[in-house]
Every structure is written in structure tokens, then in C-alpha cells.
């Protein structure tokens, strides 16, 4: 048994941590969030230069090994600064799908530019009716000769605005919720017939509604075998789920510590808020939530790396428990800060927002609790 990081992991973690501390204070983040693109291209280039974009990929694919523990420690540090650069969408999910389902040619074509920071990706998979069911796909692609013709609409496509290429889950056979008959198509985001309605999200990210109106794409742009994409999708969304759990744990660490610090400095009734035992116990509860979340996160990361088929259950356990903790820690941090906690001015409210959206991303707390029970 060994819960420590090896030297390389320690170095990776230190480098991400240093970046967040030096270049990602709350005001800098706000400027990035408010900027036209919603992320910093300079930071993105730096991520590539420092090799972080290689973290999710195996050595065979030119990456750093793709371990879940590495992914976890990067995301945790990102969570501390609420980093909005589309690492998750481009490298973990988009790149992950190409690495998992793509042909050798597709991988050689695309993965180097992902790792070099030259290509932005988005995965268009949710639909208005699908909620968290990855098999609920009503966007259809019909094979006509050498081409697929796509019609349908994808909802809340994260990084959909900046993406150069989209990976879209489509139904090429079967009924709306069949596990079989789902395919992945890769296409340029500006292909004729695609329209994107872009917007900001509640947690400082960017997304788009993406409609496909008779969009024609060569059958060569299939990722993996036609109709057989669901296992790849599930695998990569599980990875993404681990990543947001790690991000949330990073955010929770900052949030509970900041709350402790704030109540020690804020005085009412002539004493610090922290001197009230009613509040001390509340902060102890936040701390326990954080520790429990961290434990289950590590369990899931190790299960994912062990690759013994237990991963989906472990991921759902982590998402369920981390979601519960994120809810409690976020709400309590705001409450204990009083009025300043519900303002846009202070970072606490922004952590609270992100700690809210991660509860629903890739399946809500209830969804994962039920999935855990069913596996």
C-alpha cells in the first residue's frame, strides 16, 4: 500500500500548482472568463509546452502514460484555481475518444495537434431529452453512398464555441435508446449545415447549442466501428467524471480553508466568528466532507488504473459521494461568509457555482447513486 506520489507525479503536481498560484489568481481568472474566447490562448500554449496536454494519453500515442492518478492530480490543482481552459473537453474527452476509438491514421493525424495545443475539440453528446443516459441518442446520421448525413440537435456542448472539430454521437441504427447503433463522427465545426448558438455557463465556462441540418460528412470520419460507439463513450465519460470529481476536491480544499480563515478574521459581537462553537462544528463537517471526498476519489483513480472491470462502479461511487460533499461544502461556505458570500465580488460564490454544476455534470448525484446500486 502506498498513497504517495512518485517523483514524476510530484513534479507534475508542483508545476500545475505553481501555475495556479502565480498566474491564476481570482482577478486574472475573471478577465479570462470575460474575454472574447473565454479562455486564455497563452495559457493553453503553456499547457502544451509544459506537457500537460500529454497527460491523458498513453506512451504509444505519444503521451505521458495516461494514468488516472496523473489526471487526478492535474485536475485537483486546476480545481483550486477554477481553471476554465478547456483541458477536460479537448484533451481528456475529445482526445480520449480519438485515442480510444480512432484508427491509427486518425490518431496520427490528430493527437499530435491536440498535445501541441493546436486543436480544440468538443464532444457533442447530450440532447434535450437525454439527461444522463448516454445511449439516448436521437440525432441521426444516415449513410448515403460514401457520406453520412446528420440531422438533429445537441444540447449544452461544452467548449462547443471554440472547438475546431466536433465529435458527435449519432444514431446510425436502432431506436432512440438502444445501446447498439450509436456511432461517433468527427467533423470540422464549420461544416455546412452546422449552426452553433454560443453562450456562457453559470460556472464561467463556454458552451453552445449545436444543430445539424443535413450535414454531410465522409464515412471516413467515423471514429471506430459504425453502431458500436457506446462502450468508448462510456469509458471516456467515466474518465471525465473522475476528472471533475478531482477538480471538485481541489475546489473544496480551497473553500473549506478559506472559510476557516474568513471566520477567524471577521469579527461580530466583539469576537471572531470562528469563536462560535455552532460555526466551528459546521466547519468541521465541511472538513470531514472534503476528506471523505478525497478518499473516494483516490479509490476511484486507483481502480481506474488497475483496470479490472470495477472502474464504472468505482467512478459512480466517487461521483455520488463527491457530489454530496460538493453540495454541502459549497452551501456552507456561502452561509458562513454571510452577505459577501452571495456576491459576484468574492471568489467563494464562484467556487460554489462550480461546485454546483459539477454535481450534475456527467450524471447527477442521484444518477450515480442508482448506477452504483445497479452495477
Amino acid at each position, binding site marked *: 500500500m502506498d498513497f504517495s506520489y512518485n517523483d514524476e507525479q510530484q513534479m507534475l503536481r508542483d508545476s500545475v500548482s505553481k501555475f495556479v498560484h502565480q498566474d491564476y489568481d481570482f482577478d486574472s481568472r475573471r478577465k479570462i472568463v470575460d474575454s472574447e474566447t473565454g479562455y486564455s490562448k497563452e495559457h493553453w500554449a503553456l499547457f502544451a509546452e509544459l506537457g500537460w496536454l500529454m497527460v491523458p494519453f498513453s506512451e504509444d500515442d505519444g503521451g505521458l502514460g495516461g494514468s488516472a492518478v496523473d489526471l487526478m492530480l492535474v485536475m485537483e490543482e486546476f480545481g483550486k484555481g477554477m481553471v476554465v481552459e478547456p483541458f477536460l473537453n479537448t484533451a481528456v474527452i475529445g482526445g480520449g475518444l480519438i485515442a480510444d476509438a480512432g484508427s491509427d491514421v486518425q490518431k496520427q493525424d490528430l493527437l499530435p495537434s491536440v498535445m501541441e495545443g493546436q486543436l480544440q475539440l468538443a464532444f457533442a453528446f*447530450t440532447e*434535450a*431529452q437525454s*439527461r*444522463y*443516459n448516454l445511449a*439516448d441518442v436521437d440525432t441521426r446520421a444516415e449513410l448515403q453512398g460514401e457520406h453520412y448525413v446528420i440531422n438533429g440537435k445537441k*444540447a*449544452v456542448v461544452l467548449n462547443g464555441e471554440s472547438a475546431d472539430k466536433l465529435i458527435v454521437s449519432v444514431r446510425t441504427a436502432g431506436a432512440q*435508446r438502444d445501446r447498439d447503433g450509436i456511432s461517433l463522427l468527427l467533423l470540422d465545426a464549420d461544416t455546412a449545415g452546422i449552426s452553433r*448558438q454560443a*453562450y*456562457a*455557463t*453559470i*460556472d464561467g465556462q463556454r*458552451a453552445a*447549442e449545436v444543430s445539424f441540418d443535413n450535414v454531410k460528412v465522409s464515412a471516413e470520419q467515423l471514429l471506430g466501428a459504425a453502431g458500436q460507439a457506446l462502450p468508448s463513450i462510456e469509458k471516456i465519460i467515466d474518465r471525465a467524471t473522475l476528472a471533475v470529481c478531482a477538480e471538485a476536491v481541489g475546489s473544496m480544499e480551497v473553500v473549506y480553508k478559506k472559510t476557516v480563515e474568513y471566520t477567524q478574521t471577521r*469579527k*461580530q*459581537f*466583539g469576537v471572531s466568528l470562528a469563536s*462560535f462553537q*455552532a*460555526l466551528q462544528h459546521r466547519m468541521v463537517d465541511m472538513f470531514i466532507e472534503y476528506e471523505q471526498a478525497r478518499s473516494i476519489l483516490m479509490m476511484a483513480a486507483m481502480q481506474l488504473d488497475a483496470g479490472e472491470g470495477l472502474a464504472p462502479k468505482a467512478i459512480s461511487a466517487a461521483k455520488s459521494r463527491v457530489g454530496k460533499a460538493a453540495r454541502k461544502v459549497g*452551501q456552507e461556505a*456561502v*452561509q458562513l461568509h*454571510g*452577505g459577501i*458570500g*452571495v*456576491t*459576484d*465580488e468574492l471568489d467563494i*460564490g464562484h467556487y*460554489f*457555482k462550480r461546485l*454546483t*454544476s459539477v454535481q*450534475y455534470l456527467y450524471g*447527477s448525484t*442521484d444518477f450515480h*447513486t*442508482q448506477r452504483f446500486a445497479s452495477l
Partner: protein
Amino acid sequence: MNIDFSAEELAFQDEVRQFLSTKLPADISEGTLKGLHLGKEAHVRWQQILHAQGWAGVNWPVEHGGTGWTPTQKYIWSTECANAGAPDVVPFGLKMVAPVIYSYGNEEQKKRFLPDILASNVWWCQGYSEPNAGSDLASLRTTAVRDGDDYLVNGTKTWTTLGQYADWIFCLVRTGDSNTKNQEAITFLLIDMNDPAITVSPIYMLDGLREVNEIHFDNVRVPAANRIGEEGKGWTYAKVLLTHERTGIARVAASKQKLAALKVLAQSTSNGGEALLDNPAFAQKLAEVEIELLALEYTDLRALSAVSTGKAPGPESSILKITGTEVGQAIDEMYVEVAGYYSMPFVKEQFMVGFEGDPVGPEEAANSAPHYFNNRKASIYGGSNEIQKNIISKAVLGL
């Protein structure tokens, strides 16, 4: 024991329904039921309709133009308003400063201020809290120093809700010298906001909107004639008010309306082919909130019945504040849950009344998360829920 309305009360209920169905403007009820932001004009328009009906001063005594309704009538009124989508009146004038003026002001002040408040001609805001005086309000530091017939006011008020619209602000300020005991140094002043020595700066909330403000007073000259009652008695006036104006604090009617609408929404929300309402985890959570609300409704009715028999509401009303806000916040959170991925888009225009663009996602989802974030305020303001517990533990349990 029974909870039936009398024949007169039922007739009153009919009258209220009739009024709301004919006089409540459709744009206002629609916006309110959808949880959209109404803006100043809509609030004033509605309050002036109430005034024309003679129903603006729900809690006011008849002699000043109030309705003189019984507690049960007020209860019927708030229930019907919530169901019809009538917005709450902006409380600062009608519910907060007016009672202080008609209870403790002189004749001159009553004549000068009350008619315009009743008619919603003047927008008021509340200047109690300060950056360093939140839960510990009595430690406030904005000073008022006597200078001839005036006071010179200096200091900073904060969290002033909708102060950007205000014509007047009612303030608690510090008078007397440094030896005066905290509570005895507090005076209640009415201040005209139209004064260059007052600056109002916005504070934006988690939903990105300007709801509160910070207000600076830099040697603001206030006629002593604007002081309510005696110098040093402001704390007493403010406190008496706080324990009296508790009708509706549990917000039962509003929560019931929102919960009913939530059920309809969850019924039409697909969850893997089934209605979300049929999902066991969701159904359980919803039932728990509904049961809590039912208990709260009866706690509220018990308090109401005590008031009807002439007892002043006691510190038990803190239960109504705590549980009422908790239930309200739980319902807000379930709207986020129903919205799922569509809780994420943050399209501000979409949660303002009058949006005509191409909407992102279902209409009800648009404001779900921003409203949930914003309404975390409910357990913080109006005496935070922790402070309410302190009150119960001291005044009820004797701890």
C-alpha cells in the same frame, strides 16, 4: 379544533380571487410565476393597482388607509396572491418604514410620508447593515452629529436592496457621545437620497444582477425634523417592528405554488424515457420537501391563530424564518435538478421579463441555477438562520 374558513372568510376569498383575475396584469403574473425579474416599473404599477383598490396597506391600521384585515384575511390574501402570480410588494416602504412612522412618528411626519408610501409614489430602501455591522447590527458606526436644526451624517451602509431606485432611505445611525451604551445611541432617521453627498455604488449578486448597493454618506445634512421619535430610541423602534411584522415570513403560499409547478415540470421532464417525477430518488426527495412544507404550513397556522387571539408573535416566529427559508431553498435546488444540463447556460437576458430572442433550453430551466444561487441569501438576511437559532435558544429554551 378545525381549520375551516367562516362564511365571511370564504366570501372574502371569492372577492380576492375576483380582483386578482381581473386586475393583475398578465405580464406581471407571468413573469412572477416564471421567476423572472420584474424591474421597478412593474412593481410600482402593481402596487398602484393595489392602492386604487385600497389594498396596498395590508398591515396598516384603517385610520392611515390600511385594510384592517384580520390575520386570517391576510393569510387568504397571501395564498391567493401566490397562486395568481402577484409579486410580493417591495417591503421597504409599505411594510418596514410605514409602521415605524405610523407607530412612532409625529403628526407632521405621518402626513408628509404615509400617503406617498401607500400610493407607491416614493421608493424607499433600508439602511441598517454596514460593512462591519451585519449580524451584530447594534455595533453600527454611521454617525449623526447634531448641528443646529440638522444632523450631519457620515458613514457607510451596505447590502441596501434596490437602493439604486430609492428616493428615500431609512437609517439607523449612531448619536450621543462615546460613553453612550450601544443600543441607547441608535437613532432612526429618514434621509432624502437626492443629495450629492450620498453616493450609491452597485454590488452584483451571484446571478450577475445588481440587487444590492453600498451607500456612502459624506457629511450629509439631514433636518432633525426627519428623526423618528426620540434620539437614542431607534433600536427599540426597529426591534418592535421586527417581532411584529412576521406574517408571511414562512412564505408557505409561495413555496406551495412553486412546489406544485415543480411537480408539473418533473412530470413532463424525460428521464431515460420515463417521467422524472417517477424516478424513485427524485420522488423521495420531492415528498420529503412536501411533507416538511405541510408541517410548516400548520406551524404557520398555529402562529396565526395565536395572533388572532391577541397574542403578540413571540420568538417562535424564528422557527418560521428558519424552516421557511430552508424549504424555499430546497425547492429552488430541485428546479436545478430538474433542469439537469440545462441548468448550465447563463443567458441573463433570458431571465428578465420581455425576452424575445432565441431561447436556450426550456424556459423554466433558464433561471433555475441563477435563482438557486441568489436565494442562498434567504438564510443570511433578515437575521441569519444562525441568529434565529440563538434567539430561540435564549428566549424560548432559556439557554
